């Protein structure tokens, strides 16, 4: 899922500053207004009946589970569509949903899901065939789903999505197998030019000589229905976290009849057929999305709420104003502005907990002086991270890359701790020293390093803090560079930045691998220029383990390797940082801020708040 930081517009920036001033005044008035409920923030009037008003953040790109990538959409989609598994409301670990139970083979590369009896909102039974249809659709090149990469662990999913071809013997019909994975077919690029490049390898060229190229079809993807209630997923590699991954909205089944009838308009109210606890009643862009109870839902008896209204609002101050005035009951994560956090912490409204996400600085390791690991370590050691976290108020300092405390059994891999003296020594060792060997900051090429970050108050605060730390502890004044979001992403992805770029990651699924796999490929999200085959080998070995403890140990070993090479400077884990009224029950500060809405209810009895 993408980190959807509210990107500040010029207007919003100015407005935010001004409103931050008025927040001061506001905090004074808060005491007088809510005197009757002094442990709660603002007005506390439960809505009549079982209706919830939730601020869901940016306007959803779509309500098609396969076309959206963001968390804000994911939250709304959780009301409309059920997956094989669901996020546990407290821990976000996978719990059974449409799948009643599942089995995996010995090396976690084939999964069998046993479905429970369930129906679509139009009454049609929901079967394993719906999952097969949905996963094939999500991978089809014509749909061009951005989240399709999540399914690349499935056999031939990537090949189908990128329009690849198999090489087949025209006489026997046998496929040429992949030399690297003898039990999988060889896949070659679909377009002639790329294929010619791939076949520059003489062994490969010899293997496919005289063979015909057949396009990879949807039916080749490793998902099949053994019968109506049994779904089999075959994978290209061991994927112990598949069950957690299946909770992602990309894998939630979509209604074939509605899609075939309405095309891309199937997500409109009146057209949409859902499998979740709610059905879509109304969708007015930038205004509201209303969902109401789905009587056909398999677990309808456990659903408390009659309806949920999602308000798509982006401006954090506006959201907090609505919340304080009692016009909304709960808001999305990362919403309480830093200036309000101290005040809000005094109230029971504030939902605080670590997120399955991290903020870090990534380093362009291809350009000097940052191509020297000692320099990277020195910069890391010279930042007092606990002080930074204290300054930010809603963050937890991290020296590890995988956020600590999110995955209960995963060991915390400690990176360098704060040590300015050692940092200076390392820089001296790296050549920035006087003739007598003492560290000399004036020799460090500060003009070749800068910290670039995308426009957001939070990122500016962090960058200024880090800059001050380096100035104070290393005597280096590293320039800061503020870049517009898409421009920033563009330069970061092309490794076209000097020194350091801000980065953040929110887990796609509840497993440390979602963080560690960033550096499993040299391209994509890596963006550091650092790539180590031995690191990838460790990750792959870990995924082949059956014993979770052994797997965690190997993943931790890989993380230690990452921290040793230091292509990244871990900074902190953000807090969940959201608020809900005391009468909203069944919502918890879980690490992904995803809520199974069927467990949420409005408690009208104040004694139970």
């Amino acid at each position, binding site marked *: 899922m993408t*980190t*959807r930081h509210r990107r500040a517009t010029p207007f919003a920036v100015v407005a935010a500053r001004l409103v931050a001033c008025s927040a001061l005044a506001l905090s004074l008035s808060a005491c007088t*207004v809510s005197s009757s409920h002094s442990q709660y923030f603002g007005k506390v009037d439960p809505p009549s009946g079982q209706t919830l008003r939730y601020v869901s953040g940016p306007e959803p790109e779509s309500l098609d589970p396969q076309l959206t990538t963001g968390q804000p959409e994911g939250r709304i989609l959780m009301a409309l569509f059920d997956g094989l598994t669901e996020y546990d409301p407290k821990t976000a670990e996978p719990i059974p949903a449409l799948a009643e139970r599942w089995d995996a083979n010995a090396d976690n590369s084939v999964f069998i899901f046993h479905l429970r009896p369930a129906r679509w909102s139009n009454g049609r039974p929901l079967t394993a065939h719906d999952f097969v249809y949905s996963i094939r659709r999500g991978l089809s090149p014509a749909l061009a789903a951005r989240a399709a990469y999540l399914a690349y662990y499935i056999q031939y999913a990537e090949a189908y999505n990128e329009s690849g071809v198999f090489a087949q013997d025209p006489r026997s019909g046998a496929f040429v197998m992949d030399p690297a994975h003898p039990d999988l077919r060889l896949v070659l690029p679909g377009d002639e030019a790329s294929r010619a490049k791939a076949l520059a390898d003489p062994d490969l060229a010899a293997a496919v000589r005289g063979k015909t190229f057949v396009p990879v079809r949807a039916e080749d993807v490793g998902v099949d229905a053994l019968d109506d209630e049994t779904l089999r997923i075959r994978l290209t590699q061991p994927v112990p976290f598949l069950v957690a991954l299946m909770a992602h909205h990309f894998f939630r089944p979509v209604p074939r009849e509605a899609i075939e009838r309405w095309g891309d308009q199937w997500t409109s109210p009146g057209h949409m057929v859902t499998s979740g606890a709610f059905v879509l009643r109304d969708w007015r862009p930038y205004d509201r999305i209303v969902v109401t109870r789905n009587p056909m839902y398999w677990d309808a008896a456990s659903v408390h709420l009659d309806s949920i209204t999602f308000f798509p*609002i982006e401006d954090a101050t506006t959201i907090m104003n609505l919340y304080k005035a009692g016009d909304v009951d709960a808001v999305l994560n990362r919403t309480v502005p830093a200036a309000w956090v101290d005040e809000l912490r005094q109230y029971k409204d504030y939902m605080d907990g670590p997120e399955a996400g991290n903020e870090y600085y990534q380093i362009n390791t291809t350009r000097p002086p940052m191509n020297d690991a000692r320099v990277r370590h020195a910069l890391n050691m010279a930042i007092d991270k606990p002080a930074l976290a204290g300054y930010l108020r809603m963050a937890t300092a991290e020296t590890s890359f995988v956020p600590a405390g999110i995955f209960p059994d995963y060991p915390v891999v400690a990176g360098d701790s704060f040590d300015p003296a050692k940092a200076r020594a390392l820089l001296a060792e790296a050549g920035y020293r006087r003739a007598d060997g003492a560290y000399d900051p004036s020799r460090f090429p500060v003009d070749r390093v800068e910290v670039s970050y995308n426009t957001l108050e939070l990122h500016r605060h962090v960058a200024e803090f880090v800059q001050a730390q380096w100035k104070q502890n290393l005597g280096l004044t590293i320039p800061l560079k503020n870049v517009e979001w898409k421009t920033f992403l563009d330069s970061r992805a092309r490794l076209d930045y000097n020194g350091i770029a801000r980065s953040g990651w929110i887990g796609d699924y509840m497993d440390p691998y979602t963080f560690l796999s960033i550096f499993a490929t040299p391209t994509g999200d890596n963006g550091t220029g650092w790539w180590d085959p031995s690191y990838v080998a460790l990750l792959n070995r870990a995924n082949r383990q059956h014993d979770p403890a052994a797997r965690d140990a190997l993943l931790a070993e890989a993380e230690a390797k990452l921290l040793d090479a230091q292509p990244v400077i871990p900074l902190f884990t953000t807090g969940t940082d959201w608020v809900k009224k005391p009468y909203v029950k069944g919502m918890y500060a879980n690490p992904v801020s995803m809520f199974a809405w069927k467990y949420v209810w409005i408690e009208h009895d104040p004694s139970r708040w």
Partner: protein
Amino acid sequence: MLKFIIRRLLVTVPMVLVVVSITWGLIRLAPGNFYTGEKAIPPAIERNLREKYGLDRPWYVQYGRMIGNTLHGDFGSSLKYPSTSVNSILANAVPVSATIGTLAYLLALLVGIPSGAMAALRQNSTADYASMTVAMLGISIPNFVLGPLLVLVFSLTWFWLPPARWNGFSPNLILPVLTLSAIYMAYIARLTRSGLLEVLRSNYIRTARAKGLSDREILVRHALRGGLLPVLSFSGPALVFIITDAVVVERIFALPGVGNYFINACLNRDEPLIIGIVAFTAIAVLVFNLVVDVAYAFVDPRVRY
């Protein structure tokens, strides 16, 4: 007159095309793309997306399609919101922006003209100084300050009015309309005052007075007509500025108007949506100016087309 209107309307077409062409060029210059996000997407998916939206075609094909769409008044599907067409976005958002814009301007006229006239008639009185001080404040406080202040007082301290959100014709409109209209109210009051002061000293007013007309008749029948000319010429640009100011107000008050879409469309590099909104705004600007020019002919007998 009719010929003039037709000629002006015809000029609108090439002007809109020039505006969208420049916009289109600027979008291409901006780095990044609608599908870039915090998480990188594999090249294969990027290729699928580019094929789906025709971004793999040569630039002149894309440009031609954009111009064709603009001429047909059908801007296609938004890139960011794939299941929504730009036209349906405009159809939903324009009435919202039009409602707050129109109400704000009407309020500005209703308050601005009488208070300006009163100030002119009692020049240098306490009422004059008071209303001009308030007007000065209205001009100097930007709407992104005024809006939150009004919210702070009326929504969060007294809990009288909702702090944000659209609800049709409802009390939700009061604060955004007030915020949006403040600066125009102030300008109109000042323009009315200075316009009237000049007219009240002119010969034809003296003549009217010599004929024995009452003050009231002089003001309503003779003075206001000339005195309001500056207000009229201000109205053309003002209606345009109201569109851009509404961008800020819509954000502060979370209204589903064009402004919110416009900001996000630019940040998202959502080309069809940007083009659609820019074309719409360009047409609105040209039409407002035309309406003001035509209105001149009615108010000022010296103007002829």
